[in-house]
């Protein structure tokens, strides 16, 4: 069975390559569907397959760039990518990220900030999960009220509508984003991207998990456009991350390419599934992913605090993440297959 293992040229570890393909499929599906890189899902998976943590992060970022490119290509054809918005936000993200990263280094010189950063991350995830489910509950209430009044349900209505207040700011220059259908001051996406980039820099994460809700609730993008535009940003930041990690000798391109084989298929499934699932369905699934991420970090923190149970808690965290990847991938795939079957059947009838 030696042919199932491949020796990695840089890290020198021997890896079970079908495991990489399977992991690639899973995170490709989730990434294409939610519009995020999903480092928090891939890194523990790569670590289990035998990569040292530093290589797991670098390899994940390298594969993330390729995977997001595949998803962006597909979302772009559906009209889900607002390139103008993505490019403007990219500037704010990059500057914000560097400011955040420098700030953490400055804080580290003052004392140990790791616990503070972890707790901040948890608070942020809790806030995002609350926003998503509060939004869903509000939207459902609006729909119920409309039905009770005998009116037709407005398909374009949203639960939380903070973006409407933000769009009222009329600061020069005003800008129109065609794909998103938004007109606002150019300072709004710049400020939002700077803020989300700054948070990502402080937390040391890619930022898709923060940017996606920011695009939904602060910019007011339709869900599908938020997913596509976020992936466009993940693709570019992933390439930059891949360069810096490779310069540090922490990227295993061979593993990233093997993962990309699976991710190419997974990303197509995840992206095409957005054709058949309504915007609020994506939001609910995203909220569940955020909750999964929250608990995996709680378990990791507990493992550090209670060394006697660290192995159990770390394993539980990894099992939770991989279980979540499996369950969500399965759900998205089933939805995609059902939708595709219906579409093909409808075409045949015509």
């Amino acid at each position, binding site marked *: 069975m030696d042919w199932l293992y491949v020796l990695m040229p840089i890290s020198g570890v021997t890896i079970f390559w079908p495991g990489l393909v399977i992991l690639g499929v899973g995170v490709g599906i989730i990434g294409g569907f939610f519009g995020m890189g999903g480092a928090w899902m891939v890194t523990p998976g790569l670590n289990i397959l035998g990569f040292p943590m530093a290589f797991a992060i670098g390899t994940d970022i390298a594969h993330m760039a390729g995977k997001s490119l595949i998803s962006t290509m597909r979302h772009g054809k559906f009209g889900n990518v607002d390139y103008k918005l993505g490019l403007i936000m990219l500037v704010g993200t990059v500057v914000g990220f560097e400011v955040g990263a420098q700030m953490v280094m400055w804080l580290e010189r003052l004392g140990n900030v790791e616990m503070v950063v972890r707790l901040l991350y948890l608070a942020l995830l809790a806030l995002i999960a609350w926003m998503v489910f509060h939004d869903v509950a509000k939207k459902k209430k609006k729909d119920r009220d409309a039905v009770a009044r005998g009116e037709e349900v407005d398909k374009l209505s949203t639960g939380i509508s903070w973006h409407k207040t933000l769009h009222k700011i009329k600061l020069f220059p005003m800008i129109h984003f065609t794909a998103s259908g938004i007109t606002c001051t150019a300072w709004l996406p710049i400020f939002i991207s700077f803020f989300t980039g700054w948070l990502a820099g402080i937390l040391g994460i890619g930022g898709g998990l923060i940017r996606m809700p920011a695009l939904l609730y602060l910019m007011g993008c339709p869900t599908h456009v938020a997913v596509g535009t976020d992936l466009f940003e993940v693709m570019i930041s992933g390439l930059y991350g891949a360069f810096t990690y490779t310069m540090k000798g922490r990227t295993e391109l061979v593993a990233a390419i093997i993962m990309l084989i699976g991710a190419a298929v997974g990303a197509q499934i995840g992206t095409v599934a957005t054709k058949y699932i309504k915007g609020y369905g994506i939001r609910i699934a995203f909220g569940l992913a955020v909750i999964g991420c929250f608990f995996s970090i709680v378990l990791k923190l507990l493992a550090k605090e209670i060394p006697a149970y660290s192995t159990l808690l770390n394993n539980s965290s990894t099992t939770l993440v991989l279980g979540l990847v499996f369950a969500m991938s399965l759900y998205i795939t089933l939805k995609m297959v059902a939708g*595709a079957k219906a579409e093909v059947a409808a075409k045949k009838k015509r």
Partner: protein
Amino acid sequence: MKGIGTKISIFVLMMAALLPQAVFAAGEKADLVIIVADTRLLSGILKAWGTLYNESHLYFSLLTIVLIPVIGFLFGTIADIVMKGIGIDLEHRELSEH
């Protein structure tokens, strides 16, 4: 595809203008810990890849970030062909709600 190609080119130029210091900063940090690939057990393309890494981190990194999008594009196109073969419309999405 021409549109996305132009946008990506514009972005790469923008990144080059915005981030040279960050890129060089990454290079300096790498100097602190040097990882050398052990190519003795490797053969063929893997050996060549390991050797390239040992000889020049910069060239190796540049090649990595060129190869990732190229391979992603290639695999994406193949997956596209398969999906189209199944009969799924990959150009239009009817749902328009938030």
